[in-house]
């Protein structure tokens, strides 16, 4: 098994792979709690499930939807572990990029202005008897805008980073800045060494040439 420090580093810091960092799942765009049964109001009912459909390639405005899946959905899933979230990747580039939000009983009051009424997502699961679906058209939208739409639609409460998490984030930023300066410093050092070696080599070649004359 890989050594403990490497494994911890993979979970803790961004420099190896951002997608495996735990802090990145807890904090960021989309770290929010949807209204559940106890906290639901008349205007904003509880969310029962999410479904995202988009095409495999990015042209035709499907990039934001994929980014939403990569960036926001893990955070939403972490903070709402009980809400099923499904993603369907289609081959149809001209097809819709749609996010279906399933509400308990009836859709929220903001759904009328935000949801696309004529958009049909054939891949989304059919709503149950006590569910209502609001379908968002997410084509040609960056993922942050998709998230804003979702937030306005559902009235999700964003979870700010705790002081501990903020400190950790700051530390990671500092580390990133430090590694940037370090990278240039080390690169300069290596370049000096390389230049020296090259010069020595050239000098030696010249000596050889003189000897041969």
């Amino acid at each position, binding site marked *: *098994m890989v*050594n*403990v*420090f490497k*494994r*911890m580093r*993979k*979970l803790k810091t961004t420099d190896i792979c951002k*997608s*495996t960092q*735990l802090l990145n*799942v807890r904090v960021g765009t989309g770290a929010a709690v949807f209204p559940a049964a106890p906290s639901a109001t008349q205007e904003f009912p509880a969310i029962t499930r999410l479904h*995202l459909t988009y095409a495999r390639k990015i042209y035709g405005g499907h990039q934001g939807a994929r980014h939403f*899946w990569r960036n926001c*959905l*893990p*955070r*939403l*899933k*972490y903070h709402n*572990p*009980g809400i*099923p*979230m*499904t*993603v369907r990747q289609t081959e149809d580039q001209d097809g819709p990029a749609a996010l279906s939000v399933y509400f308990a009983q009836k859709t929220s009051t903001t759904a009328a202005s935000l949801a696309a009424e004529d958009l049909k997502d054939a891949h989304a699961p059919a709503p149950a008897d006590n569910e209502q679906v609001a379908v968002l058209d997410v084509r040609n939208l960056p993922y942050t805008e998709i998230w804003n739409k979702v937030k306005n639609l559902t009235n999700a409460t964003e979870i700010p980073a705790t002081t501990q998490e903020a400190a950790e984030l700051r530390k990671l930023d500092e580390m990133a800045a430090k590694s940037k300066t370090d990278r240039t410093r080390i690169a300069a050092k290596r370049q000096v060494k390389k230049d020296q070696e090259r010069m020595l080599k050239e000098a030696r070649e010249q000596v050889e040439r003189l000897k041969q004359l």
Partner: protein
Amino acid sequence: MSSLHSLLPTAARGLVSSCRSALRPGPLASVVSTFQQTRWASKASVKRVKSQGYKSNKDKAKVKGKKVTNKEFKQHNLKDMEQFALCDAMRYIRAFEVGRQPTVSKYELHIRLKSKRDGPVIRNMLRLPHSISTESRIAVICPPGSRQEKEARDAGAVLVGEQEVFDAVKGGNIPFDRCIAHPDSMEALSKAGLGRFLGPRGLMPSAKMGTVVEDVASRVEMLRGGTTYRERAAVIRLPIGQLGFSPEQLRDNMRIALEQIKKDAAAMNDRIVKEIYEVVLSSTNGPGFSLNGEFKSDQTPDTTSMHGP
């Protein structure tokens, strides 16, 4: 000349110089030679000291080298590793695996053992209470009309019999992922000459692979719901559940797997001590979480809804 000398070992250098002085006797030779000799001698002595120093270093390296080839696998201190309760690890993994098919993505268990580098390894089969494989189509080759045929059908084999299986395979249609045979049918199997079709796919039944068995029904059940595992570099890795499993289902599977592995370790030779050192829960697309043995912690939210996609 000097380059030659620097290449030769000290003893040989002395030899060369003595030869030369013998070969070229001259008026100055004695003076020069003595001068050179002393110079070389002093150099040689320095070299000797140096080489001795080097030698002692080398000895140290040798000792170090011996240390590196430790008989045990290196055990890292788990105090440096953050450990998680099962439900917390599951919560993270479900977040990392969001949007994946819950029957396709799997939870994996990595069990680190305290074990020697040279020695027998744990290797066994296991049947979990909650089956992982979503489908495993099994063909059974056994005499038609026998008791085994009925049992195999009951156990869930898709294709049972002798001639039926042979015809299907020869027709280029292989509707199964596993193939097992009853010893009574081995003669017919070898006559049918299926090796050309089944061999390249690794489906040809053989006693060595454990696919020729008397008790066909139990093996079919084992293959349908079971997994094989083996220890590699002191780690046993095995799939432990589908992503859609609830924490309770996963816990049951883990409990059975760990118990069986403990049993396997205990069943080994008396002199061989193997014990479980660390258990890591991972998944198809997620990172690994070291488990602390708890089911849930204080931060764990309601776990009743933690299943499905």
